């Protein structure tokens, strides 16, 4: 089946983002297709390349990146939510004259239309809320 996930919750103060990762991994293990993962609200914070978890904790950012690389996942970060949270790709850093692009590789900034499309074309949409 074709799934899309929406992730709202902060990856740092809530368990939800990590539950979503386990669910996504299991979907793929079971042979399902993930059309898109859409990060919204504080969920976008996982895409900051500067994230440095303590050594004895799991790293959700690198986990998502590895999963995306292995399965060519479409990881879309809501651009409006990201820019106001200080997560910028090259274009946005230039546009707003900020010193650094810090969007982690493997993620892409885009608009809510990507979520609407995901809802339209997926068999199941699963929300991971805060």
């Amino acid at each position, binding site marked *: 089946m074709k799934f899309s996930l929406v992730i709202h919750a902060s990856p740092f103060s809530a368990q939800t983002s990590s539950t979503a990762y386990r669910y996504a991994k299991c979907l793929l293990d079971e042979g399902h297709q993930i059309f898109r993962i859409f990060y919204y609200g504080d969920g976008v914070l996982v895409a900051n390349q500067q994230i440095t978890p303590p050594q004895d904790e799991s790293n959700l950012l690198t986990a998502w990146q590895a999963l995306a690389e292995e399965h060519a996942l479409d990881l879309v970060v809501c651009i409006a939510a990201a820019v106001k949270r200080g997560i910028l790709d090259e274009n946005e850093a230039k546009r707003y004259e900020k010193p650094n692009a810090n969007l982690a590789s493997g993620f892409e900034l885009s608009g809510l*239309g990507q979520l609407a499309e995901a809802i*339209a*074309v997926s068999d199941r949409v699963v929300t991971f809320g805060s």
Partner: protein
Amino acid sequence: MSAKKSILIINQSAPYGSSNGRESLDLALTCSIFEMPVSLLFVGDGLYQLINNQSPEQLQMKKHEAMLSALPMYDIDQIYVTAEDLSENDLTENDLAMPVTLIQRDVIASLIQQNDSVLTF
């Protein structure tokens, strides 16, 4: 994009205290631009988003009531509120910023059933 899927957005958060209300409206408008039929249910604390005479000037935040007023322009007119939530807050339809469809709480299950996708905020 494939055949139009209907979407129900369930709003359960008060305005201003969290950003859930704004994020749900942004999504509702976007889905409507993509011509997906959108219904909005304001339930529990979500009812508070609709209370009229909001003036958030001191908070320096956007007026939620004004964002709601965009809904009819996007042809979103299926806006549901339960009679039970109104009465538990001693409010009536006159306290609300816009016309809504009043339903009984036990109609929510069929709203969930009828729509292809349900998102909660």
